[in-house]
């Protein structure tokens, strides 16, 4: 191969290597951006996991503080009884007032 041919071969090789280098740099850039995005997502997910742990712990505490099913039913029955009792008390009060007034009148 003469000198000119040799030079051309070198030139082609160098251009090829530069092209490969540029391609690799572009691929690296894409990977870099993807890694940055994933790191951000992981940070957000880690926060979510922490939040989930806190909520789970809070749920356990709430479950422990709540009464059993029977007590809960009794409390609900009491609530209904309170309503009835309040109405009855009103009726009783009205009855007492009326009969006291009648007694006072007869006296």
């Amino acid at each position, binding site marked *: 191969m003469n000198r000119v041919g040799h030079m051309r071969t070198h030139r082609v090789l160098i251009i090829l290597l530069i092209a490969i280098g540029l391609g690799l740099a572009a691929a690296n850039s894409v990977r870099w951006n993807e890694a940055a995005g994933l790191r951000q997502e992981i940070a957000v997910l880690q926060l979510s996991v922490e939040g*989930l742990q806190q909520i789970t712990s809070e749920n356990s505490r709430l479950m422990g503080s709540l009464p059993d099913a029977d007590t809960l039913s009794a409390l609900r029955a009491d609530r209904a009884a309170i309503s009835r009792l309040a109405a009855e008390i009103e009726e009783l*009060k009205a009855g*007492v007032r009326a009969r006291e007034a009648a007694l006072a009148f007869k006296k």
Partner: protein
Amino acid sequence: MIPDGQLLQGYAEQGAEEMFAEIVRRHLPFVYAAALRQTNGAVHRAEDVTQLVFIELARNARALGRRDEIIGWLYTTTHYTAAKLKRTELRRQNREQEAFIMQQASSASDHVNWEQLRPVLDDAMHELPARDRELILMRFFQMRRLADLGRALALSEDAARMRLERALQKLRAALARREITSTTAALATVLANQPPVVAATSLAQTVTSAAVSAGNAATLGWSSLFTMSKLPLGIAGAVAIAASIGLIVQSNSVAALRAEAASLRRGTASLASTRDENLRLTRLAAEVAAMRQEDEKLTTLNAEASELRTRLEEIARTERARATQSNAPDLSRLDLLPRPTFRMRPDFPSELQTHGIGGEVSVDFTIDADGVVQEARITPGGKEAGAPSGVVQLEHFVVAVTTKVDPAAKSPAPRPDEPMIQRLLEAAALEAVTGWKFEGGRKGGRAVNTRLQVRMVFTVVPEIPASATR
């Protein structure tokens, strides 16, 4: 003969040093002569100037390769390079030249010689337009024929001669301003007969190698990147390998990050349901707390309702008592007073019996038409209160019990207080009276309601044991 431009082009593009050497061989005498002239014959300084000029030529080989003729550029560069070197000596040389010119002026004539001309020639030449200067240079310094000049300048030989004449006239005028007077013909003669200058043979070699190496260093750019053999290939290969390694590392890192993100996503999948559960539990806890508070209220409400019911019962009793009282006839008008048919004896409270405690209780009650006791109640005012009008006072009902009393023995229980004693006696009396039966009072042959009152006396008769009497 290969033109200068082609030689330079070949050197610039292919690095053909032999081509540059040919240029050096071709122009060295001219450049060296010019340098020698401009350094006033200082050989070493002229050699330095020559070397610098060819170095500059090698550096600008690519740009100058587009020219057909480079003699003008060489001449100008020689001038400026020499000017730089001789600047420090210029004043002294000028004084010497002035002295020399003054000396020569005394024998001034239309004839001029080379020694007069040499110190000022180059300055005068640079006052000329470039085209005129190149014409003079080609004719008198390269000794080219007029026909040759005509071809180089695309002119006829006559036209080249005319232009050369005009250029010489301009040079003569420039020299005249430097007090060197001459005719154009004399000037042409002096220029044509200037002493030859022979550059040392070793100078060409030195200049060539120095210029080529300097030129290579100067042109180490994008084009040299392609002309160099191993270094750029090695560098480019190393960069490509480094980039590949970086890409692999980066890919691995991204894969690890993806796996971590996927794992975290799975971990947080139940977040929404857990949050809903938390909401439900929080609401339930709040509801329970509220219900517990209400539960405490329930006790109060129950007590209040109970109180109200009691009050209603009292009112009802009062109403019944009034009704009974209003129904009871005047005792003086009764035909027959009620007569007890069965009187149950009250149970003496054991607590009082133990302690030998007695007492009196007055019970007020009504006998209905059937002789059944109604509305039995403790008479307000106790034993001191007498029977009100319209109420039949029955005889005292004595309840006596015998209790063994041992003064030495200690009581098993503490003695009850007075209110407790009274309550116990009242309860026993009411229970007994409620069970009493009567033959009802009659008026006009008809059974009527009658109000009665009875005083019950509870008394304890101590029975002292025989051992105690002895």
